[in-house]
């Protein structure tokens, strides 16, 4: 995957502003360049097209859409970003949808760190 930044770029998608704020600071402290934030599925798709991020940290429960559906739409984009799903709920609560998604993986918000995200994203 080619990109203009020396460090991986990320888009944070979550409907809670406090989570977006802390996640941005956490990821930036961990070596990511956060190129944008979005609060719902529609704006996530628009921001992803504008900013072309390497990674999208995507909340499962959005006001206008299901994170799994947004992940599938992002996977169909020409410059397909790596999508990592996140939620305040556990993987148990999300059931079999996690097995079927084309997202790279899932990190509970409780366990989210820049390192856990980088590990899941792997080599870009």
């Amino acid at each position: 995957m080619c990109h203009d930044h020396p460090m991986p770029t990320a888009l944070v998608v979550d409907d809670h502003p406090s989570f977006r704020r802390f996640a941005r600071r956490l990821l930036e402290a961990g070596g990511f360049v956060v190129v944008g934030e979005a609060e719902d599925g529609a704006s996530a798709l628009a921001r992803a097209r504008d900013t072309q991020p390497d990674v999208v940290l995507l909340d499962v429960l959005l006001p206008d859409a299901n994170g799994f559906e947004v992940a599938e739409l992002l996977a169909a984009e020409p410059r397909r970003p790596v999508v990592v799903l996140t939620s305040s709920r556990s993987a148990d609560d999300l059931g079999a949808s996690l097995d079927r998604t084309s997202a790279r993986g899932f990190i509970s918000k409780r366990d989210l760190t820049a390192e856990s995200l980088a590990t899941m994203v792997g080599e870009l």
Partner: protein
Amino acid sequence: MRPALVVTWAVGAALCTTLFVGALHGDWLSPAQAAYAYGGTFAAITLGVLVWRRRPDSRTGPLLTAMVFAGILPDLDTVFYRSALAVTIGLAATELLIPLYGHVVLSYPTGRLGGRAERVLVALAYVYAAVYALPLLLFYSPAQPHDQRVFECLPCADPLTRVGWYDVTGLRDALDKVLFVFAVLFLGLLARKLIVSTRTQRRISLPLLAAGAFGAGEYIVQYSIFGTQVDSWHNETWFWIVTSANLAIPSALAAGLLWGRAARSGVADLVLELERTPTGSLRAALARTLGDPSLELALWLPERGTFVHGDGTPFGVPAPSASRAVTPIGPASEPLALMVHDPALLERRALLDATGAAARLALENERLHAELQAQLAEIRASRARIVEAGDVERRRLERDLHDGAQQRLLGIGLALQLARSQLGPDANGAAELLAEADSELRAALDELRELARGIHPAVLTEQGLAPALRTLAERSPVPVHVLDAPAERFAAPSEAAVYFLVSEALANVAKHARASSVRLRVESDGATIAVDLEDDGIGGADPERGSGLRGLADRIHALDGRVTIRSDPGSGTTIHAEIPCA
């Protein structure tokens, strides 16, 4: 009786008497023939007036009366042959019997013509009668008939409308052919009417349809033999056949009325039957007595100001139409109940009234029963609403926890991580303090998540029953084999009832059953969700002792479901539940 009806009847009686005397005096008919023709006609007029009086809203009475008059008006010139007016009326009515005959038969018993084909045929028959009469009125003279089919009558008056001389024999021959076609089409419509009628209509109208078929068949045979209408006054055999055909319609109606009177004896049986009829079965008893399986009974509940079925469910009373009629029981302004039935039964008004009167005896019990059923239905609906409202509230609470406290705690957790990452080496033990705070926070988050899950599982709301049940199975300390779980979504209260039943049952297995495994099967046939849960533990569970399963059984009953628990000592515990899908 209304004066108009009395006058009609009196005119008919006078006409029949006059024609009878005239026929004997002029030696046109034998005494037996005259008595049959005009005695029968008088009886038919009497019947028509009676039907008219009993059913003023129906056209059958006036149509029948008009038909019988139309049958004798052409005979006026046999007595009043010197009267130009009588001759004119007789000629104008020459074939008027034909459309009225078809109209009476095809519109019975509702009094309305059923379909387009019937309306068209009857309308064409009226046109036929007019076209037949017009040339006679304009060109016919009894003194100089110029029509090979009419006998010369030198002293007879000309019609008032005569304008000249013209031989119309050819036109009348052609119209006889038209009448033949009418007769065939009429037979076809009678057959169709017989096929499409309801059982009640068929039973009531069969004598009249048979009489109609006799009349049409008689003309078809007549035309086939003679190629024209036979002059029945000069052919004794055909006199009896044609006159019988004309009288067949009123005879069939009279037979129907007599049958109705006989059927009223069924009302006496109904009174006896009502003594034994269990409450809630009045409708069936009335339907049997009236011979109308489609009969519905709407009970008036004054406290609610509404009509209900016997089971207490609301009854939408239809507007009277060609397909349904409504007869009140009790005063029409404040009926105790309504019978909604086949309109054909209106021909049996006396039977309807007698049946309704007999039914009043049993109505009070029936109404109390319906009131009770309505209250039970309301309680059931109310229980279901309470359960649903509880589920909605649980979902709201879970969502509030997720969006509120949980998000704030997560934010604090992220902030703690940031703080830890930004601490320098001279933090004076602050890193340990932050790690401890983070650990406490994670524990609080776990407890909060468990609390939210217990209130209402997000996986159920968002993913449905199958993923939620698999999650339950995975989290159970006793291994659970999920043999089947439906992938489709159901109404939220039904899904919640199944989920909490399985959740509570698995918790009980873990606590008390000492089981090594559980088998779970959840299936749906589209109407019901069936849950079967079976463990291989020690059994002996008493669902009445614990409040958990008892509460869940209440929840399931509130949704009109049922649950059975078998737990014989040493044989494990089996739970079977059936819950409506919606």
